[in-house]
């Protein structure tokens, strides 16, 4: 079988019902920033929802980039490890250094409509094999000798996780 090198993308959705502490911090901070920055665009209009601003106000698509600096600090607190996703012994193991913040919906006047996502893009992984429902993954280390032992993880793809890229070696 060809060796396949992949990256995963985890789309972590955060809204007013999110219960975890980190999620709540991201929710509160991103909403505050959205509310502040969106008023640069809603100024002089009756629009308050993100969807309406996108549809009717020029350059409102910049909002997502303007809100991102409100959550960068929280991303850094993760120390490069993707949250929530566990290997089969219950540990987080996926490394990331790229992310993409996304505003799904929001409203300057209604925090309950604020829903965002953080897309985590993992570092490159070698997909060695598939065992039952699990992918057998290891960090991709092109510099390592082929007979070097590689530490591996068994991982079952849950909802909101996609194989984002694939390359056959």
């Amino acid at each position, binding site marked *: 079988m060809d060796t396949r090198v992949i990256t995963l993308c985890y789309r972590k959705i955060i809204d007013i019902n999110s219960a975890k502490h980190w999620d709540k911090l991201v929710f509160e901070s991103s909403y505050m920033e959205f509310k502040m920055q969106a008023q640069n665009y809603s*100024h002089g209009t009756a629009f308050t929802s993100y969807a309406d601003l996108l549809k009717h106000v020029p350059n409102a698509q910049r909002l997502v*980039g303007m809100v991102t600096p409100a959550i960068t600090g929280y991303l850094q607190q993760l*120390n490069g490890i993707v949250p*929530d996703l566990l290997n089969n012994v*219950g540990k987080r193991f996926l490394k990331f*250094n790229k992310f993409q913040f996304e505003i799904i919906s929001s409203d300057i006047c209604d*925090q*309950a409509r604020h829903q965002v996502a953080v897309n985590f893009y993992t570092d490159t992984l070698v997909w060695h094999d598939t065992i039952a429902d699990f992918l057998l993954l290891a960090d991709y280390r092109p510099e390592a000798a082929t007979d070097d032992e590689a530490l591996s993880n068994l991982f079952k793809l849950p*909802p909101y*996780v996609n194989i984002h890229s694939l390359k056959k070696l």
Partner: protein
Amino acid sequence: MERKNFLKSLMIGAVSTSVLVEACKKDSTVTPTTTTTTTTDTTTGSSSSSGCSVIETETEGPYPTHSPASYVRSDITSDRTGYKMTVNITVNNSNNSCNALSGALVDIWHCDAEGNYSEYGGSGTQSTNYTSVHFLRGRQTTNSSGLVTFTSIFPGWYTGRATHIHVHIYNSAGTSLKVTQIAFPEGTGTALAAVAGYTKGLSGYTYNATDGVFSDGYTLELATVTGSTTAGFVLAISMSVPA
């Protein structure tokens, strides 16, 4: 201290929006979710088709703490070069006998020596260690005297506009109080003349009188700028906003 104020202001924000949150709880209690039963690290990741989840065997790690937006900084220079300029903005409340307005959030942004603004990160993927993406943009919270101070560089200029600094003032809950711009004095002996548009020069420069934003009158938006190119400049302006 500034950070503390900022944190405090966020808490005030949270309190004032809790009415909304409260109002929405009626809806949200109708839909029980399976993920609310765990207090530590539930995972969407390992829920199986049988509805059970692999339990986590390690601690959550460093407890997440509040982190202010990376706009919150006094020195907004980042990697830009130019003549140093300290920006002192004092905010008072026109609805309260023009007394100092403390706890207000003040955002400023301006262009660099070449006349370019920082781009926002956009919608592409970003690295977690980016820091200089939003050069010459910053946020501070007014102190008990209504003052915020930024360290920056004297702005350059671009076609069609006089030299200016954008200012957006919010109350502590993030509600906009005023969007405005700061204008610069012109003529012999001014900082504008001393900087002389950096390497660009002032040929084709738009002066306040013909500037599309300032031409309808800018006395209230005109700052005082002292100093020199060697010692650095100090900009001071006082603004009244209805809070």
